[in-house]
């Protein structure tokens, strides 16, 4: 019949177009650079699936491949208290729970460590990935993995953890993916023990990764020796070391090596050989006070490691209970155990040690042979490691890295950014060695007394940490713990000659000889990233980022007080924003200022007048803003003309600058004939004052001049999405005050623990237990952190049943392997 139905060509055309549109909304070509809008917005399986009901009941009865029944009690802040009958079940559950709340973050951080970000992001991160590969991150993680898997305890711990993470991952369908996977458009992949090893290297790189070696090499050639020593002293005048001055050290078991002649040890360069700019350092505080000096008579320990402020937070609070262990504290999603915390016998806190464990060697290639380099008069073959970097939407990039006797050739001509040297440099880094920090964590979590604490931390090799300790018997201690090399004087302080065997790393120092102190007379121990010891410590070591201002302030508050300290005092101390730098420089900056100066409103100068400003960097202080802005300009204007293209953060330390501004130093300088141009401070003061007034004027017209607005402390989502981040937090302080809240960096976990009969513990971190931006637990601790308030930590007894009123949800886990 004529009316028989045929397919209409127009219909087919429209159908094809609609299909293409739907396809693009589902899988947009990488070229377009847009998210999969349809897939993402879908209210059933897309982003809306992450809208966690605010009154979600997390309680569940679960069947897991664990050997015994276990329980997880979530308190009202969603801190899990995991109770298991053996280590396997415990770490299995910790892995499962880390993944449940923080999977995407674990994935991203370990991808970042391994240089595998481009795989999911694209060309934008290719240079970053290359740098990670060239640093030897994966190679280091593989070395560590061998050592970690050789020890039955850490092998079992990691295997169980990985099993737990993977059980969660295999339970996921697209709908249940964490939001960020949907936004960026990739899928979780199986967890491996290597990933855990990579996370440890991620921390090692974060904490020992930056080094002054290259900048100091430049400065050493650029400045006259006397001036270099004056501006960059190894030990700053008046330093109060981590291990109290006067502590007696044991005789070294190793002979201290003699330094080779300078001409052999160190090569020399031109200014043009150097790149520009590098990142600045990290810092942290910890201290412990003996019972003799506290109101309760029990020892108190405080810690606030300063790290990048990100969401999801680096830390995840957890309590772990198994036979013989009951520990509470901050864990790192991606690794089993508790990294900073306390158990029923003792508590510990970490700060970064900053002894230099990363050195650079100038490699002399054999002319005409790309495969060889000179070493000890011989031609050695490079070991080639081929790195495949997969790039989303692009062909893979292959990078061949030459490994030398010292380590990987990291900086080559094309990699001269970030303060690099445009020469082939090999990096020798403790992080490349196979080390087992996880064993330290394992033993530390179970340690019951000081000796067990020491035995535990002796396994902690890199990143070196200042480990403060307090126990219920009232003991306090501090170990500057890590694996160090028996160096000759100044070994590794500058780029070394890589073709002479005299510069090779020597023997390892037995770790029991690391500087430490138990129950010092002063009744407290403290560390805030300053120099480790006074000059009586027998072994040589060099600096990779010591600072002093926070240490001075902490020791001032603890030493010059006959007060019996309380927990409240500790809270107050961790929020302290007093700037020792302001206290030590404001007067001199005024002095350098021409008395005739007439610029801007006199209210600025008046605000800094010593009588009216207490030198505290309080959130709403306008005086603090003016001082900080003025100081920043002053510091730059003082050093820039002299140090020219040295990056800002390689100028002499701010506290050294403060010392050089004083009259005595000025006199010494004049007498010794060094720095004849000492009036550069005067010039800088006048120039910077005008710049500061102009800047403050602009701020007044825009965001205002409250200090917190000017400095803008932010907590940023790991994918740098402003929508999932928080900025302009109303918090005081700066990097050089105890409350070290800088721009995107600050106290990442504030903890105060009193080790009395009853353990009383408080803590807070700038984030929340859930990594899901659609959860009410995403950043719920942030307001408290900003306000300097703490959560009381519920340390539950190690029993099968709990009746603590704070428990809100329970997982009853049935063991299927039992």
């Amino acid at each position: 019949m004529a009316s028989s139905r045929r397919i209409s060509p127009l219909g087919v055309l429209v159908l094809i177009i609609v299909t293409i549109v739907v396809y693009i909304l589902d899988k947009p070509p990488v070229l377009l650079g847009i998210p999969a809008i349809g897939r993402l917005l879908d209210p059933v399986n897309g982003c809306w699936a992450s809208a966690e009901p605010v009154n979600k009941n997390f309680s569940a009865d679960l069947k897991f491949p664990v050997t015994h029944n276990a329980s997880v009690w979530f308190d009202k802040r969603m801190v899990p208290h995991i109770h298991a009958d053996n280590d396997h079940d415990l770490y299995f559950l910790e892995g499962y729970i880390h993944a449940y709340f923080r999977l995407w973050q674990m994935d991203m951080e370990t991808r970042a460590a391994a240089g595998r970000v481009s795989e999911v992001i694209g060309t934008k991160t290719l240079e970053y990935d290359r740098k990670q590969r060239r640093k030897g991150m994966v190679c280091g993680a593989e070395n560590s993995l061998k050592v970690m898997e050789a020890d039955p305890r850490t092998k079992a711990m990691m295997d169980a953890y990985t099993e737990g993470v993977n059980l969660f991952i295999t339970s996921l369908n697209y709908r249940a993916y964490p939001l960020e996977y949907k936004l960026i458009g990739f899928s979780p992949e199986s967890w491996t023990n290597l990933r855990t090893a990579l996370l440890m290297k991620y921390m090692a790189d974060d904490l020992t990764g930056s080094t002054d070696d290259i900048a100091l090499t430049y400065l050493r050639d650029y400045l006259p020796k006397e001036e270099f020593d004056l501006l960059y002293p190894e030990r700053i005048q008046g330093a109060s070391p981590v291990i109290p001055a006067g502590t007696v050290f044991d005789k070294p078991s190793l002979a201290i090596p003699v330094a080779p002649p300078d001409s052999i040890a160190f090569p020399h360069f031109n200014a043009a050989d150097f790149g520009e700019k590098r990142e600045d350092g990290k810092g942290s505080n910890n201290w412990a006070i003996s019972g003799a000096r506290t109101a309760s008579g029990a020892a108190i320990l405080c810690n606030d490691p300063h790290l990048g402020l990100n969401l999801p937070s680096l830390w995840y609070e957890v309590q772990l209970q198994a036979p013989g262990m009951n520990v509470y504290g901050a864990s790192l999603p991606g690794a089993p155990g508790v990294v900073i915390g306390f158990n029923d016998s003792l508590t510990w806190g970490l700060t970064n040690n900053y002894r230099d464990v990363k050195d650079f060697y100038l490699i002399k290639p054999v002319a005409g042979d790309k495969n060889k380099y000179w070493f000890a008069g011989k031609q050695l073959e490079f070991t080639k490691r081929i790195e495949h970097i997969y790039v989303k939407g692009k062909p893979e990039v292959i990078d061949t890295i030459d490994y030398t006797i010292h380590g990987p050739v990291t900086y080559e001509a094309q990699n001269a950014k970030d303060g690099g040297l445009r020469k082939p440099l090999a990096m020798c880094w403790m992080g490349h060695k196979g080390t087992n920090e996880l064993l330290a964590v394992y033993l530390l979590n179970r340690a019951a007394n000081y000796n067990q604490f020491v035995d535990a931390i002796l396994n902690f090799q890199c990143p070196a940490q200042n480990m403060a300790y307090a126990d219920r018997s009232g003991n306090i201690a501090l170990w500057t713990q890590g694996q160090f090399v028996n160096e000759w004087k100044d070994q590794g302080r500058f780029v070394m000659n890589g073709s002479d065997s005299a510069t090779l790393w020597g023997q390892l120092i037995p770790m029991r000889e690391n500087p430490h102190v138990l129950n010092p007379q002063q009744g407290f121990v403290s560390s805030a990233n300053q120099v480790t010891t006074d000059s009586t410590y027998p072994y040589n070591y060099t600096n990779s980022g010591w600072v002093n201002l926070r240490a001075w302030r902490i020791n001032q508050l603890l030493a010059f007080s006959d007060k019996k300290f309380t927990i409240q005092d500790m809270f107050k101390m961790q929020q302290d924003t007093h700037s020792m730098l302001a206290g030590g420089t404001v007067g001199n900056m005024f002095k350098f200022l021409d008395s005739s100066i007439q610029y801007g409103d006199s209210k600025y100068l008046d605000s800094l007048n010593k009588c009216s400003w207490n030198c505290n960097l309080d959130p709403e202080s306008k005086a603090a803003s003016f001082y900080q802005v003025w100081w920043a300009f002053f510091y730059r204007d003082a050093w820039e003309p002299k140090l020219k293209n040295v990056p800002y953060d390689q100028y002499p330390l701010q506290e050294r600058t403060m010392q050089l501004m004083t009259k005595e130093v000025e006199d010494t300088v004049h007498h010794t004939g060094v720095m004849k141009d000492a009036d550069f401070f005067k010039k800088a003061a006048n120039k910077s004052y005008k710049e500061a007034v102009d800047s403050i004027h602009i701020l007044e017209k825009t965001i205002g001049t409250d200090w917190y607005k000017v400095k803008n402390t932010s907590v940023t989502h790991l994918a740098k999405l402003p929508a999932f981040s928080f900025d302009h937090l109303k918090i005081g302080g700066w990097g050089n005050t105890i409350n070290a809240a800088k721009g995107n960096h600050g106290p990442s976990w504030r903890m105060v623990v009193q080790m009395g009969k009853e353990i009383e513990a408080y803590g807070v971190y700038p984030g929340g237990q859930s990594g899901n931006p659609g959860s009410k637990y995403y950043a719920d601790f942030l307001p408290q952190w900003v306000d300097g308030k703490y959560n009381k930590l519920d340390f539950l007894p190690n029993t099968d049943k709990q009746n603590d009123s704070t428990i809100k949800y329970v997982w009853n886990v049935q063991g299927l392997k039992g």
Partner: protein
Amino acid sequence: MKFLLSVILIALLSAVAENFFSWWSIAVVSFIVAVFFSQKPGKSFLSGFCGVAVFWLVACLMHDMVNDHILSIRMAVLFHLPSYGLFIAVTVLIGGLVGGLSAWAGSLIRRRA
């Protein structure tokens, strides 16, 4: 009557389909329903649009209300939208357009050449 029926059918079948298949099952459902109902192209588009939009709106609201808008507010900021309501609107609009276009294609294919 036909129109209303097709709207309801698209909404319901989409809801069922999305529980088993990916989001684009809304396109398949709208297309098939339109082929069977054989309405005028304009009406067909409207029924696809309304069917999916209703379903997506209800689904969004169900998520959003128990979530106190935590997610929708953050997603709105991410998409540079001034309010979470607008983010819901954009979601519903995208779903509606996909449903509408698919239904339109379905009705066109059925038409006699």
